[in-house]
């Protein structure tokens, strides 16, 4: 099995072109899926037995939370690949992921908080999911702050890669410790964002929205990564054709 396809993929000019061609496909499909999911979630799906129409926030909260964690893992893997095999493109991918992931984390927190107000009466509650999301946001912000503190882009890439790897090892530990922490004192009646048995009809828009968010992520990473490639390329030859 030859690895030429892999090396070709990692070559910046090739990746630049491919990402440029892929992006519109990601983008338009994502838009379509998100719009369909929004309509389905707000109109077609039946209202919840307990929470009425309020539960429809699920369709934006859960995909955001999922994407926030998915993006961090992708970012860490890309950073690891870049660090171990010294592939600049991988470092660029990690850099591209960070602001996307951080904004999804913020969205998960904000929608979670908004959802919480009608459900348990307060704008914030220290439940396992929200607390973990908050800590994840801190990890993203720390990563981005570390990146920004270096003038040398190579050092920024490699230092933040170490941080991302340390962070990703910590994520399961954080999740478990927060879960443990919330189960210690059984609060009287904190109904978390869980709900009783959820029908399939209510799940369909959720999956469509997640698919839409994933493709949207693909589009955003493609565009950002093209920018990262340009910033890392000193060799002018292929740039002339690209620009």
């Amino acid at each position: 099995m030859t690895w030429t396809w892999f090396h070709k993929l990692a070559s910046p000019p090739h990746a630049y072109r491919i990402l440029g061609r892929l992006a519109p496909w990601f983008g338009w499909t994502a838009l379509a899926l998100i719009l369909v999911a929004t309509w389905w979630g707000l109109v077609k799906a039946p209202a919840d037995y307990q929470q009425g129409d309020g539960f429809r926030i699920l369709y934006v909260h859960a995909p955001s939370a999922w994407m926030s964690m998915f993006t961090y893992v992708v970012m860490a893997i890309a950073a690891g690949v870049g660090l171990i095999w010294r592939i600049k493109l991988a470092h660029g991918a990690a850099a591209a992921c960070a602001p996307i992931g951080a904004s999804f984390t913020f969205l998960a927190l904000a929608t979670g908080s908004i959802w919480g107000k009608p459900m348990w009466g307060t704008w914030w509650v220290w439940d396992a999911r929200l607390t973990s999301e908050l800590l994840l946001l801190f990890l993203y912000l720390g990563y981005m702050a570390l990146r920004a503190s270096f003038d040398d882009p190579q050092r920024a890439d490699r230092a933040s890669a170490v941080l991302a790897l340390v962070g990703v090892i910590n994520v399961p530990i954080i999740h478990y410790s927060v879960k443990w922490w919330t189960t210690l004192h059984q609060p009287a009646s904190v109904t978390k964002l869980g709900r009783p048995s959820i029908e399939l009809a209510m799940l369909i828009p959720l999956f469509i929205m997640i698919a839409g968010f994933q493709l949207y992520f693909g589009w955003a990473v493609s565009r950002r990564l093209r920018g990262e490639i340009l910033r890392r390329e000193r060799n002018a030859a292929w740039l002339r054709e690209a620009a």
Partner: protein
Amino acid sequence: MDLQHFLAMGGYAKFVWPAYGLTAAVLLWNWWAARRTESEAQVAARRRLELAQESRS
């Protein structure tokens, strides 16, 4: 459901609509920011090219 029911969201309107609005805002920001970083990088790359060509001639 009819339009009025849709907008009222069973009484949860002031929670559901801000949540969806925020989502739209974040997605729009990401869309704008991604395009901007890409085009800024393109402009900068083009400038580097020009400078390199100038210094060579």
